[in-house]
């Protein structure tokens, strides 16, 4: 796995900030009336999903945040360790073992465990919001951003080294925000008193680290939630369908398009397939595809040199195209059909 393109020994700029839910979205979720009773559309795609602000922090907080970044990188290696419990004695071996094994590319259609090291190129369409944050200059400073604690969705760190390499770390603000609701007490003089001021708690590590070329993701689900990937993927269905149509011209994608714009899971498959077929591809063998669909219980029709999934089989057809359907045919008693929620090329 290529290491991070960043020199931790020569950091020359460090900034901390938070991503706040957009004003309108926050109001909508809190039951305030929408203007004219119409449903507001949330912008995504090339638009932003959160309001980002920088917040000044002192040296101690910076050092703590830097430790979090280091821990994140270590935990990414440890997430691949299969040698049992990580202890102080085997930690170094576990990290080194993780470094040897390259991470898989993030795919929106894949089901991931809570902590799993994957990567996504920063140029990928699913990483557009992260790329915006990574590359943005002059994010405004707002010393009052932490007071809007109900709106805090993520917190982030951005660093730059002497060679102008940039590193961005992002974490969903669950504990950071949640601690505000807890009743904390502290020892003042000789008695315990309730802490009235909001207290922010940093986590042990970040959800992802991004350098100039790729984002290393430790918690894929957190990445998807933080950058509202599902909404973005739903919005990107027409664009992704065009990419797939170009690569697979004999397939009629009109029913798929209509189905995917309504169903997030199908939209995830469309996004995943689009990422796989980008670039020149040999045309699909329709006869082989139809036969494979039949074995896997997906009903399709071959009409005038074009293949169309039957109504109710759109998702199954997308699973076939995304290599997520397979059948075991060798045992007697008929084919055993399976769906792969996670897959790895062997």
């Amino acid at each position, binding site marked *: 796995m290529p290491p991070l393109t960043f020199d*931790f*020994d*020569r*950091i*020359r*700029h*460090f*900034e901390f900030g938070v991503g706040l839910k*957009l*004003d*309108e979205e926050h109001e909508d979720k809190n039951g305030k009336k929408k203007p004219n009773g119409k449903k507001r559309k949330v*912008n995504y795609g*090339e*638009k*932003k999903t959160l*309001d*980002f*602000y920088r917040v*000044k922090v*002192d*040296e101690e907080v*910076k*050092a703590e945040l*830097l430790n979090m970044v280091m821990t994140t990188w270590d935990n990414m290696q440890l997430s691949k360790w299969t040698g049992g419990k990580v202890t102080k004695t085997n930690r170094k071996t576990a990290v080194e073992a993780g470094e040897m094994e390259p991470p898989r590319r993030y795919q929106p259609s894949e089901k991931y465990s809570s902590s799993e090291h994957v990567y996504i190129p920063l140029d990928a369409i699913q990483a557009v919001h992260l790329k*915006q*944050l990574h*590359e*943005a*200059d*002059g*994010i*405004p*400073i*707002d*010393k*009052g*951003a932490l007071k809007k604690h109900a709106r805090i969705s993520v917190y982030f760190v951005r660093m*730059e080294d002497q060679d*102008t390499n940039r590193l961005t770390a992002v974490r969903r603000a669950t504990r950071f925000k949640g601690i505000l609701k807890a009743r904390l007490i502290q020892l003042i003089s000789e008695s315990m008193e309730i802490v009235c001021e909001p207290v922010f708690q940093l986590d042990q590590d970040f959800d992802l680290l991004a350098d100039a070329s790729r984002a290393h993701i430790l918690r894929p689900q957190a990445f998807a939630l933080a950058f509202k990937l599902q909404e973005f993927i739903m919005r990107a269905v027409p664009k992704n369908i065009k990419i797939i149509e170009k690569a697979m011209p004999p397939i009629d994608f009109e029913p798929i398009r209509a189905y995917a714009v309504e169903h997030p899971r199908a939209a995830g498959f469309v996004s995943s397939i689009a990422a796989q077929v980008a670039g020149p591809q040999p045309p699909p063998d329709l006869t082989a595809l139809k036969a494979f669909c039949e074995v896997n219980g997906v009903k399709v029709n071959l009409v005038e040199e074009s293949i169309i999934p039957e109504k109710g089989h759109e998702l199954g057809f997308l699973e076939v195209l995304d290599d997520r359907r397979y059948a075991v045919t060798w045992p007697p008693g008929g084919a055993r059909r399976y769906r792969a929620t996670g897959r790895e090329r062997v």
Partner: protein
Amino acid sequence: MHQQLPAEGMKTARLFMVMSSFSPLFILWAIRGNGLIPEHCFIGFCAFMVILPNLVLWLRYCAACKEKDTGVINVGRVEDHRDHLLVYLFAMLLPFYTADLTSLRELLAALAALGFVVYLFWHLNLHYMNIIFAIKGYRVFTIYPPVTDNPIAGKQSQVLITRRVVILPGEHIIAYSLSDNVYFEGDICHHSHSTLTE
């Protein structure tokens, strides 16, 4: 959907920075003296108005160095604002210096006018109009960010106080932050600039 820009922070520090830009006026007033107020009181007041704001400016400066409170400035368009210094000299220092302070009403009027100018400088973020910077060989540039379609990128202009003679579009500068939008690129901080991991 436009992001609401937060109010400029460091209000007190900025006020003292504006006050420090009035130091030459108080020095001139102290030299001229005043017939109304006893000499030692008036000179003491002028000395206080020179020392305190500059001390606060210096402390802000040191704090930015100590905390490594830096900002990244990507240069899109640059304006050299040497003319601001002329405006500062002719529109502010000279009229106040020539004001007649021999009667109580004149003195109060001058102080009130000074208060309005201080408020305007503070409100318009002109706290970098400091003659000490000019004497030390620093120039003041207003830098506008490059035009980009990134919705997160800041659109506000930044002020950079630097010894550089020219700043070219496309340059990437990291400087110490005196306030939210005013940055200082000087050699004073260099000795204390170290990496975070040291």
